[in-house]
């Protein structure tokens, strides 16, 4: 991808920090930052042990943010997520104990292993930015970034997230195994002291919030917006897709593209940004037809096909 544009200097320090912990996987780090900067959330789908938790921890440590981890199990209750009011005999009143969701960066591990009730407590918090406990609405502090993981190999006793809830996540990513070289490098780096212990924050919360504002100011031309709409419309009429991407998807794609442009030190969005992000943003927002599943065509391939079909705007309207 783009060799012409370098990273935004602040972002580059964060990325370098993460790189010390997570060897390789720069793409996933960048995409996580895309979600973080555009106030979205990430769903990571991968097998255990590839460094999902480590990535989130490195990120939160670099940003000087509170990090909470929720391990989802079948018997987890919504109050275990949101917090609970407990009777204090001394004060003779109920006192609210913050749940793990009251943090800045949350790792929701194995989200598909808990009951839908608990899942929706989390998802509601992600969508609304607040939680309601005992009739009391508590706003979540900003930044609020959820990175949920889901294990694709265990199907027994899992509650797969419904499509309607999947599109609460801005991006759906795959971590993947490291290459041989990367793994060797990793072994060498953890042999004495784990690097996660040594990294220090390179940015504070305030700075992160101002970056989020800057991202929303990134310019996107109407041509590129139309390009996004053309892509989304194409998913709605594609023969292999039963349910196309909703308008929420177009907004998500535009927000993500802005963040991606910003990370690459640009204050305007290119169609390239849109194209690159399309499969991460749109993949989990559409329902493939039975035919596609039968033929083994994944959503990525369908999106690639659409990207090849939809024309990129390359000239201003008056010259067309």
């Amino acid at each position, binding site marked *: 991808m783009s060799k012409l544009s370098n990273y935004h200097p602040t972002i580059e320090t964060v990325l370098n920090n993460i790189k010390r912990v997570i060897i390789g996987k720069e793409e996933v780090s960048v995409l996580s930052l895309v979600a973080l900067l555009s106030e979205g959330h990430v769903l990571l789908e991968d097998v255990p042990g590839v460094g999902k938790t480590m990535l989130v921890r490195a990120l939160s440590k670099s940003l000087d943010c509170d990090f909470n981890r929720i391990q989802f199990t079948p018997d987890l209750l919504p109050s275990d997520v949101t917090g609970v009011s407990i009777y204090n005999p001394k004060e003779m009143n109920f006192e609210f104990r913050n749940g793990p969701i009251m943090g800045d960066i949350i790792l929701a591990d194995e989200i598909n292993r808990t009951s839908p009730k608990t899942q929706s407590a989390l998802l509601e918090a992600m969508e609304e930015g607040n939680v309601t406990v005992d009739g009391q609405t508590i706003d979540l502090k900003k930044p609020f970034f959820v990175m949920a993981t889901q294990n694709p190999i265990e199907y027994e006793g899992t509650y797969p997230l419904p499509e309607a809830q999947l599109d609460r996540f801005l991006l759906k990513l795959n971590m993947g195994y490291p290459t041989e070289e990367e793994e060797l490098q990793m072994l060498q780096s953890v042999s004495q002291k784990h690097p996660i212990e040594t990294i220090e924050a390179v940015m504070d919360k305030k700075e992160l919030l101002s970056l989020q504002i800057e991202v929303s100011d990134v310019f996107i031309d109407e041509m590129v917006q139309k390009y996004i709409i053309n892509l989304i419309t194409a998913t709605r009429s594609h023969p292999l897709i039963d349910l196309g991407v909703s308008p929420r998807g177009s907004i998500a794609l535009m927000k993500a593209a802005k963040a991606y442009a910003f990370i690459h030190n640009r*204050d*305007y969005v290119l169609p390239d940004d849109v194209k690159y992000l399309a499969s991460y943003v749109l993949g989990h927002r559409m329902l493939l037809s039975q035919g596609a599943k039968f033929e083994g065509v994944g959503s990525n391939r369908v999106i690639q096909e659409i990207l090849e079909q939809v024309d990129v705007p*390359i000239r201003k309207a008056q010259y067309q």
Partner: protein
Amino acid sequence: MTSLHQKDTKVFHALLYLGGFLLFMEWLRPLAIISDTGNVEIFILFAGFCFLLSLIRLTRWIAIPLKFAAVLIILDGLFLQGRIGSQGWLHSFSTQLDYNLGLIQNQVWTDFTPFFRTLLFLIILWLMSFLLHYWFVVARRVFLFVLFTFIYITVLDTFTTYQADSAIIRTVIISLFVFAIASFLNQMDRERLRPAFGKWFASSLIPIVILSSIFIAVGFTAPKFNPIWPDPVPYLTSTAENAGMIEGSDKTVQKVGYGIDDSKLGGSFIQDDTPVFMAESERRHYYRIESKNQYTGKGWERSTNLEFEEQSNGSIDLDLFSSEVKTERLEASITFTEQANFNKLVYPYGLDAITGQEQLELLLEKETGTIEIEGKQTASLLGEYQVAYRYPSFSLEQLSQDNFIDPMDIKAQYLQLPANLPDRVVALAEEITKDATNRYDRSKAIEDYFDNGNYTYQTTDVAIPEGDEDYVDQFLFDTQVGYCDNFSTSMVVMLRALDIPARWAKGFTGGQLTDQSQAFEKEKNTYEITNGNAHSWVEVYFPTVGWVPFEPTIGFTGGADVYQENEGEASETETDEEVDEEEQQQENQQQQEEEQEDTNADVGANNNSNFNVPWYVWLIIVSIIVVLGVMLYVYRYRWLNRLMLYRYPTFDNVQAFERAYHYLLRVLHHQGIKQHSGETLREYAVRVDQQFNLNKMSELTAMYEKILYRNELSLDQDKYAHQLWKDMLTLLL
């Protein structure tokens, strides 16, 4: 955009549309001259009305009824009787409509009544007002219409009598203004500006007015060269005519004119107004060449060998009719042109003697009446010769006598019919003549039969009998469409079916009076006889009188003069020379296809010789143009590159850079590096750079991206960008 500015835009649009209307007027103006359209001013008024309604953007529900009402008022004023809307009016309106819609159904487009043509024309004007509104105001594509206007006017000027001298000047002025306004509006749109009208007036209109007045003044007063080439029209027309002369094939379109071989009649022919001879005479009458007697079912042949007899001292021993016939002594002089490519003489009925400038050795074939000149290949070499003749008028009484017997030799030669002549031809001949009592009445009945409205005179789409079809039978019963050969042959065959001896005569009609002689009011008139005047008619044998000509072809008046004795000469029942003005006009109209305005033909004849460019010169010129065109196309990017480098010496504005960048894309595309569908510029640039192992395209593209996707209005590194662009172009070509 304030409302004031919107109002100004409307003024621009109105001006633009007015220009469109004025240009459209230039289309209407020549109609009165080049076609038989009358009342052009009404059409112009109507067009103006439609344009006005389109301009003020009246609601459709008001505009359409208004236009419709205008159409009705015009039709009422021009064609319909009675008060508008009254019962009689409605009746004639619906009759007209009904009749013409029927014609549409039957695809007889040519028979539309003037009422319906006018209606259609008004609808076209209506549509044009819409179209021009779209072209000029909505799309602002002015150039094409201006171009077509110029082509239209110049073509009319070249090929018709319309003089477009002032029309060209008007069109130039109008189009300059129209271009100026359109390009100004486009510019404003591109820059998203809306200047006030006053400002535009000062900054743009005044310079345009000054400039165009200078152009026109200079163009008008400057000395002009005469055309270097002669008028190409006669050359083009003669070439086009020759194109039709493909011999040997039955299906071909023949060229009109006198021909020797009549064994296969039928088929269309194209018009040819090349003069064959000029005749100076007191009367306008037919000129005979020969007759034929054997009908084969497909055409005419001679049954006997020709027996030529030498004629002494120019007197011709040819008696077509008996000495009892009343005659008038006349003289005429005939001059063949170079186009006369046959070696037979033409002569009027009653020929006595022929005298030429030199001693002529004339050969006469008595049976057919063919006169040839010994030692001359074509009549054109003969030059001028005088004919003395006694022009006959036949007595009706004499012709009506019925107590005679035809001589054996006449019966033997002139009653022949093919064995397989369909019976229905005979039956028809009997049916036509069932009320007639004598030979003359029978002949007249058959001659007049073709006027019954079922038969049409035309020279195109005339059938040729195939297989065992009979030429006459096909014409009489199947096609009913044809020209003189069809009519005359049919009459001869039907007469023979009734045992009346008849033969088929060939020659020329009386031709056209030339302007020249009319001016001098000479006693004798000069007639020009062209190939288009070639004709065939019928001669019927009356034992007491001789051979009497009949004219069955509809629209032609060339039969014999017949008078009734007791009423004297004054009441001739049929004359072709003394037809009154009205008849003459009618005839002229009907013969329009064969005989054209002689002035045009004159010009053609005179200029033809000047334009003697051999065909191979044309071939060379055309091939050079074709080769040049092909080379220009094949190497188009070579010269386009220079043009672009010249056009964009710097990228001082963003537009120049955008256009230059897109030109580069075009060149890349031409060189085979095509942008895939769905590929972004950046991806494409990377691919291009991989091809050349460079980074230039990517750098250039990054600059372009800023302009395109960031809406940047200036280029920071315009010199560097230009260098990159130039390098890329040089690299590619």
